[in-house]
């Protein structure tokens, strides 16, 4: 059926005129192996019931290696049976050894819950005697004791391990005394600062395990990234075996790069991604193609879904019996489960989602995926595209470009997109800020011995002495003891945004129902008073956002517009620690305040997106106190001379491109992720009175990245120069200085040349 649709697309001249590239990735045969003889008959029975008769080769290999006692890293695409690959050896061992236990670590709560239902299926809803529990913030107090005492598989997330489990390890004595396997799924999401924290968390976990006499074995799973083995090994700090030859079959995949047609060829304005993806998705759905659309924001997700539903409404026969759901974070767990189930069993044919469905939540196979805008990374693009494609069946993925320069670059340079290897992930667990914070947590859990190897091949003595100077540990009798009344894990956040969600309450006509939730920073952008809140196609108007009590009261409404807030971010220097001349510029390091304020909102009409009104927002700005390094092209420096040498019109472009360049290069040297640093450029800084580039930590309080930048500034600038001079692009691309907008009022000069010219004059 899909092949007919693809054929009709090929013949559709209008469609084809917007296609910039059509890649056909050939089908691949599956590679099957029989189940190992020893598999417990109860597991076999339930797998047969699910229609699984044989294993894929990678599942078999994972099974063998895990059973041999090796740490493994499994890297195979979405829907290749990755979870069965690790569940099989774990469950088999747990059935053979009635005392053995396992911990599953997932980056988010939603994924843990999904995993629990999948495991329960294999365990025949309790007939196979292995007790599975999810342990997270939502676990009721009343069952927490049973989790600790009886849980054979405990599914949790890093935050809960960090604040709940490890600091209370004596309560978990039974669990730790028999912890055999630690499964870390979606390990690619632990990059940068988050990953550095996780690495230390694993150090703490191993330390506790050792205290109870065990060394657990690690099973890691990753989506396709540039360096999965390297990342996993640096997180578990042990050798591991890479299993990446996918044995699952895969049908022929059609990957189309699509640029929405021009509506105003003179100004270069194209059709919007929202409408265009709706049009395409509706077309596919009407022809019976199960489709997923990935949108880049929550509001867009809701918009596209309701537009698709509207366009199907025009047809007779009960919307062609097509159900389209929207899916994103912030829905109630029950709602999400029912959408996932609806997708699996075929009741829902179309879904529009944020990247929430990019990770391994089981939604069964879909036929087509439409990416409404480039998701921001090559790895994400492949993950999202991979949501389409059932075993042995043909699939279709369409990447639709928005007007942003990156999207437009990719659409014009398909070779860049298809040859670029997915992004790599780095961690720096010995980052002194992260390490010190984590060391406090570790000291709280167990006293430190004199030569305890917390860091492989290194010593933390010096840092412990430092902590003693500050009075939080006490060195006595050859050990360092925690000697503070606080609970350190509570004050150390693994993620940049603090937990704590705003609960959305529907108060229409005296109702008092919780309909969803949202994190606080997003709530300030989306749930201000009078905002229109879209939830699964229903409209609500925000009556009151009560940040203090973490509630947002909404009422049902029916209007013809939605709202969009206007965000302003400004940076204020709070305190300057040092200012020094280096490499022909001045470098300042200090504390800054990053302030994000939503002060106005627009009302936009559904369908046309035309502006039909404004409103004021009265909310305190979201403030983050963090660390920053500031590059100054101050008077009488080489940087200034080189900058002034540029033509007036080049200057704003060059400084902005330098910012992009630094954001691309710095993570490699700082071993962080690009989301961990913020970059802001000024053509004339009001405080310093010269051109400046701010590079700052996006974790509140800073994590040492600014200090790291200062130490490595020479290498970073050199790296930036080499990157831009060696890049194979002509006028700038997403990998170097960012692509050039060619539309409206194209610049008369080559940005890449200008940046290069600036850099080389500055360096000499």
């Amino acid at each position, binding site marked *: 059926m899909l092949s007919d649709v693809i054929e009709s697309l090929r013949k559709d001249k209008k469609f084809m005129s917007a296609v910039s590239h059509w890649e056909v990735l050939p089908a691949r045969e599956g590679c099957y192996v029989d189940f190992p003889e020893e598999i417990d008959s109860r597991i076999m029975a339930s797998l047969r019931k699910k229609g699984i008769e044989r294993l894929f080769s990678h599942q078999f290999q994972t099974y063998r290696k895990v059973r041999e006692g090796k740490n493994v890293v499994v890297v195979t695409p979405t829907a290749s049976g990755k979870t069965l690959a690790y569940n099989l050896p774990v469950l088999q061992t747990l059935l053979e050894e009635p005392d053995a236990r396992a911990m599953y670590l997932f980056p988010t709560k939603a994924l843990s819950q999904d995993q629990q239902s999948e495991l329960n299926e294999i365990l025949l809803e309790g007939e196979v005697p292995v007790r599975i529990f999810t342990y997270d913030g939502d676990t009721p107090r009343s069952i927490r004791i049973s989790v600790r005492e009886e849980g054979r598989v405990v599914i949790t997330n890093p935050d809960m391990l960090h604040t709940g489990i490890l*600091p*209370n*390890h*004596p*309560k978990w*004595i039974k669990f730790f005394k028999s912890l055999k396997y630690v499964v870390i799924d979606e390990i690619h999401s632990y990059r940068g600062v988050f990953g550095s924290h996780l690495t230390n968390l694993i150090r703490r976990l191993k330390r506790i395990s050792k205290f109870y006499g065990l060394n657990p074995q690690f099973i890691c799973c990753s989506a396709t990234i540039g360096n999965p083995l390297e990342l996993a090994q640096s997180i578990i700090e042990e050798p591991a075996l890479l299993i990446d030859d996918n044995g699952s079959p895969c049908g022929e995949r059609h990957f189309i790069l699509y640029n929405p047609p021009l509506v105003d060829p003179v100004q270069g304005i194209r059709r919007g991604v929202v409408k265009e993806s709706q049009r395409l998705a509706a077309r596919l759905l009407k022809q019976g193609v199960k489709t997923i659309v990935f949108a880049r924001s929550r509001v867009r997700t809701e918009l596209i879904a309701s537009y698709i539903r509207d366009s199907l409404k025009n047809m007779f026969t009960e919307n062609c019996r097509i159900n389209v759901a929207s899916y994103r974070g912030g829905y109630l767990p029950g709602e999400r489960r029912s959408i996932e189930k609806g997708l699996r069993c075929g009741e829902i044919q179309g879904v529009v989602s944020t990247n929430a469905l990019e990770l391994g939540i089981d939604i069964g196979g879909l036929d087509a995926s439409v990416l409404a805008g480039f998701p921001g990374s090559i790895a994400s693009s492949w993950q999202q595209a991979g949501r389409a494609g059932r075993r042995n069946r043909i699939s279709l993925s369409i990447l639709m470009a928005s007007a942003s320069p990156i999207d437009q670059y990719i659409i014009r340079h398909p070779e860049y997109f298809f040859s670029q290897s997915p992004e790599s992930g780095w961690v720096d667990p*010995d980052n*002194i*800020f992260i*390490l*010190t*914070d984590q060391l406090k947590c570790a*000291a*709280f*859990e*167990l*006293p430190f011995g004199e030569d305890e190897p917390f*860091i492989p*091949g*290194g*010593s*933390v003595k*010096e*840092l412990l002495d*430092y902590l*003693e*100077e*500050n*009075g*939080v540990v*006490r*060195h*006595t*009798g*050859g*050990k360092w*003891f*925690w*000697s*503070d*009344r*606080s*609970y*350190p*894990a509570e*004050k*150390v956040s693994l993620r940049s945004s603090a937990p704590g969600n705003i609960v959305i309450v529907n108060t229409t006509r005296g109702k008092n129902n919780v309909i969803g939730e949202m994190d606080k920073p997003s709530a300030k952008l989306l749930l201000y008073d009078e905002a229109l809140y879209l939830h699964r196609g229903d409209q609500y108007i925000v009556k009151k956002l009560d940040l203090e009590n973490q509630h947002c009261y909404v009422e049902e409404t029916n209007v013809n517009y939605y709202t969009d807030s206007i965000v302003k971010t400004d940076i204020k220097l709070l305190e300057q*620690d040092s200012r020094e001349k280096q490499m022909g510029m001045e470098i300042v*390091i200090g*504390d800054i305040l990053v302030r994000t304020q939503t002060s106005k909102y627009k009302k936009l009409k559904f369908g046309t997106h035309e502006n039909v009104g404004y409103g004021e927002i009265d909310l305190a700005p979201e403030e983050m*106190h963090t*660390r920053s390094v500031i590059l100054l092209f101050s008077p009488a420096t080489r940087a200034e001379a080189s900058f002034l040498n540029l033509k007036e019109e080049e200057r704003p472009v060059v400084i902005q491109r330098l910012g992009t360049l630094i954001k691309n290069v710095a993570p490699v040297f700082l071993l962080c992720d690009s989301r961990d640093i913020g970059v802001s450029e000024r053509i004339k800084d009001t405080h310093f009175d010269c051109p400046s580039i701010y590079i700052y930590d996006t974790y509140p*309080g*800073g994590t*040492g990245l600014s*200090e790291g930048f200062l130490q490595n500034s020479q290498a970073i600038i050199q790296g930036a120069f080499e990157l831009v001079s060696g890049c194979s692009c002509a006028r700038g691309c997403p990998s170097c200085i960012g692509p050039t907008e060619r539309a409206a009022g194209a610049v008369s000069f080559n940005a890449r040349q200008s940046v290069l010219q600036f850099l080389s004059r500055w360096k000499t």
Partner: protein
Amino acid sequence: MKPLRPMRSLHRHLGYLDETVQEKKSSKTSLQNLAFLHSEGWSRVGEYTFHRKIVLDNPLNRYTVTEELNPDGCPLSDVLFFDTETTGLSAGAGNLIFLLGFARIKGNTLECEQLFLSDYPGENEFLILVQQRLNEAGLFVSYNGKSFDSHILRMRFILNGMHCDLEHQNDLLYWARRFWRRHLKDCSLANIEREILGIHRTLDIPGVEVPVIYFEYLRTGREGRLPFVFAHNLQDIISLVKLFALLDQILKEEKIPEKTDMAALGSYLMSKNDPRGAEILEESFAGGDKKSGIILGLFYKRAGKWYEAVRLWKDMAVSGSVLDQPGSSPSYYEPLYACIELAKYYEHRRKDPGEALFWVHKILSGNIPCITDSTDLSKRKQRLEGKLKRRFKSDNN
């Protein structure tokens, strides 16, 4: 591996997260300095552990206590009262017990003991001494021990590769909550002492200061304010015994403090099938406590004693239109409650929709503010009107 050189900014980073850091300036104390306590009565019983015993009059001048307080009937001399002082408030592994107070009844005297851990490395020997005492006990009595002290104790034992058994614990906090939560703003031991036991501490230190004092002592090697902590702990133990004695008197109805929630006491006794429960509730209702009336009414209703129940409800339905106490939950709004009960009674028991409707109207007329969801009420009204109409028709036929 990069050199680990703490930086100024790191210091700031830590200070940013933990404001308490700055005020502490560590100066190392050697172990010798710590191995000495000057305050009264202490003697060394281990490398790091100190002990003292204080003998007082026995506030519990009786040989048995009620079964409620001592379900297994263990001899009073085997009851171990205990209280811990810790370096933190969390239940995590980094929270150390450095002082344990015990009390036991020995004939006419109360024998109090305290064990003090003078530095971290002595925890093992400290816990061995603690364990000896725990092993001799038949019943543990604590205040908030079920959710705090015994958790920490268990945790400390595990961390030292040992085991302790704290089953058979009577946590007096639960009793205090039952009897005094209604009339006291909080049920902390300090507040119970003040309001119920009539004990007025002088020179006491607040509980949150305890860890600070211990850390201060560890840093400086001087006793400093430690004697206050010892005294605080001792007083806690003594109060615990006094509270135990008072609870025994209350349950035996020998003495009932003024601020006791009689409704709770009556209700408790009734749950134990003690006939005194109903008497207490009747008396307290007669004295104006509506909550007692509600509990009693429910009891009569369940027991099928309709006459008594209706008497109570009618009494409540007409008396008072002010809330029993501000902030109490709406279900305790007794006129409303009583009217609904009466309406149910007349509708279902007496099959008298007219009378039932009278009580519904009494609410809807606005004399009684309706604070609960009124949909149930209007449904009831409709149903009753329907019944009345049908009856009227059949009467006419």
